[in-house]
């Protein structure tokens, strides 16, 4: 039977890719945002040891209005230019999609009443959020991925309604994975608190400018991380709607709720690999390792 070996809170500031200087990215940096980059390195090392077959990513930067979309073609390549930070992120990607699993998720979703769509336009450009999270987890890109769009529409009604929908999507994802026989890692591509500065320093990687936007945002982030560390998924989801409002959080796109639901509301402690800010937003790399937790 297939299984989710881990779920990762995998934020996607393009700054981290920029600072790493991979061959795929055109702009070059001297350094920057090391706490987060090292957090990703540690997390990645452990996860790759567990030999996953697929990474599944849910990104707020593939926004859809009608339904949840999945990629339905085996291969996509192209250039991803960040619309907000084009000076930092112009990335050539070439990626493989696990189409069988994508279609299975779409099918399971439909079975429980969700609107699901398969994206099969070969010219489609993959969003920079998915690319950044996937790159940071596996820069070799030698493991296929599944991309799920973020459908914000249910959040029109309320944060709670939105969250309910994401729970369903999480269930559909879990069922499809179990039937697939594959070892999967989920990536919830989100920052934590999302208030940010509206100006940038002359040198983007000048770390003397980098700090949390506001102490209140920091307190919120710490509260969220504390609940994660204690394995209190339900409490985490209970405060999530308020957290979204207080910190204009990107998790409104639903990735965290989707992931926790797919993981079956873990009660084991999550591992926090690191926390850092990017232009004032709070970001953490956090791992729920279902497989390791089961072994203990």
């Amino acid at each position, binding site marked *: 039977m297939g299984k989710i070996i881990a779920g990762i809170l995998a934020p996607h500031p393009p700054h981290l890719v920029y600072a790493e200087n991979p061959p795929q990215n055109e702009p070059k940096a001297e350094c920057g945002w090391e706490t987060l980059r090292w957090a990703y390195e540690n997390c990645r090392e452990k996860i790759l040891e567990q030999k996953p077959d697929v990474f599944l990513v849910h990104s707020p930067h593939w926004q859809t*209005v009608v339904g949840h979309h999945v990629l339905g073609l085996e291969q996509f390549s192209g250039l991803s230019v960040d619309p*907000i930070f084009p*000076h930092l992120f112009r990335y050539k990607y070439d990626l493989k999609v696990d189409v069988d699993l994508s279609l299975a998720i779409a099918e399971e979703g439909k079975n429980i009443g969700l609107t699901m769509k398969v994206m099969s336009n070969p010219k489609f450009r993959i969003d920079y959020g998915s690319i950044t999270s996937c790159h940071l987890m596996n820069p070799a890109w030698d493991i296929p991925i599944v991309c799920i769009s973020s*459908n914000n529409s249910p959040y029109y009604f309320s944060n709670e309604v939105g969250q309910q929908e994401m729970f369903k999507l999480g269930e559909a994802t879990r069922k499809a994975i179990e039937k697939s026989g594959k070892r999967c890692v989920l990536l919830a591509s989100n920052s934590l608190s999302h208030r940010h500065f509206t*100006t940038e320093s002359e040198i983007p990687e000048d770390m003397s400018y980098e700090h949390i936007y506001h*102490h209140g945002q920091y307190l919120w982030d710490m509260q969220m991380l504390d609940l994660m560390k204690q394995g209190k998924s339900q409490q985490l989801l209970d405060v999530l709607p308020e957290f979204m409002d207080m910190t204009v959080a990107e998790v409104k796109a639903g990735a965290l709720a989707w992931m926790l639901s797919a993981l079956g509301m873990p009660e084991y402690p999550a591992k926090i690999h690191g926390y850092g800010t990017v232009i004032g937003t709070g970001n953490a790399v956090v791992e729920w390792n279902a497989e390791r937790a089961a072994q203990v």
Partner: protein
Amino acid sequence: MKNSVIEKAYIVSGLPHIYLAPERSPGWNSLNQSYQKIRQEIETINPDLILYFSTQWLSVLGYMFQGNPQPQWHHVDANWHELGDLPYAFKVDTVFPEIYSQEVSELGHNTRVVNYEGFPIDTGTIVAQMFLNPDNKFKAAMVSCNMYSEKEENLRLGQAAARALERYGKKAVAVVVSNLSNRFEIKEIDPGKDQISSNKDDEWNRKILEMLEEGDLEDVSQCAREFSRQANADMGFRGIWWLNGLCGESNHFSGDVYDYQPVWGTGAALIGLQPTVPIRARSRVECANQEEASQAEMVQSLATREGSTWAAPEKAIPNHTMDSESPSVSGPSVQGQKIDSAQAPEPVGAYPHARREGEWLFLSGVGPRKRNSKVIPGVELDDQGEILSYDVVTQTKSVIENVKTILESAGSSLEKVVDVQVFLTNMKADFPAFNAVYAETFAAIGATRTTVEVNRLPTPIAVEFKVIAKL
């Protein structure tokens, strides 16, 4: 039109359905046909430049301007990919974005002229360009829509566009790419039976269209917030504020509604506004002046219209600037201007709220008092005017609000504060609370600060700020 910074303005829907799949719905097809009328008009005008503001090009760090002379890509929409592809190759004016971005940086915003291969141009701008400028006869210019921007900011962004166009001196047409009500059906629909997602949205759209048909751009701008709240207007109908700023905040237009149809539940319209008097650019000082006057007017008009259920302003609201009563930037010279804000508390002596010297703005001491009020926030006085109790948290918050008001009246903002001197009447008791409130706003700004205790301040207050900021 002679001496007008723009020849004509348009508000158009940028949904790809209209361009890619007109055959699927009578409404989409109708819009497709109506778009041709605008194209023909623009061809007759024969402008040097089409300036686009699209609600689908979102920025969060200030504003972006397209600077690639020949952007090209094979675009596929994130949601509507199944309708087909939008390959494009545009011709972009590269001089105008430099001028415009300079004007916008002078307002204190982060700006970026983007010239990168593959930088994503939004679906809305692409659709509008495909319809209106299919052969690239006219050069295009594009400015982003800031997600967090409010009304005033968009008005100023529009005013800056007018200044930039005037400096550039070319013949221009402005196009706002925006829907009216923007409530998409969130399930699959039969496009043949597409309809506006609610009657309420439809009614609001029609009211807005009626006003635009009358040419009342300023009035629509005034009720954009309510429209947005009631009918979920596209990006808060920010586009209309920008256009209103650009077009001089007036109702002097002759309006045309070429079409109005549902697209996937949203209200998609094609609208034209032909200026009936030449639109001229206004300097920053002139704009600040008018802003204060129009705010005073709005307060007045709200007072007279109490009890009315229709929140949009009446057509009869006068639109001229007030002169005698409204305090304003006095003196035409850029050097050493005195600045008084209509919203900040009245000075208690012979001094202005602020003084501008070159790029610097020096504020007089600011306390927590409010304009036109005897009650001081955070102070309780007895009959003799002696302090019974006071709350330094409330006072500090009020001081910061007042500082913000004065800075904004002068065209600056809190983010541009460089130095703060703080006077407290009781350092020991009040410093920790004051310090915490201060940090909420100023921690991110990083201004230098000096805090001293003083024996007494001129009014019964516990805290006063002396601020220096950049313009």
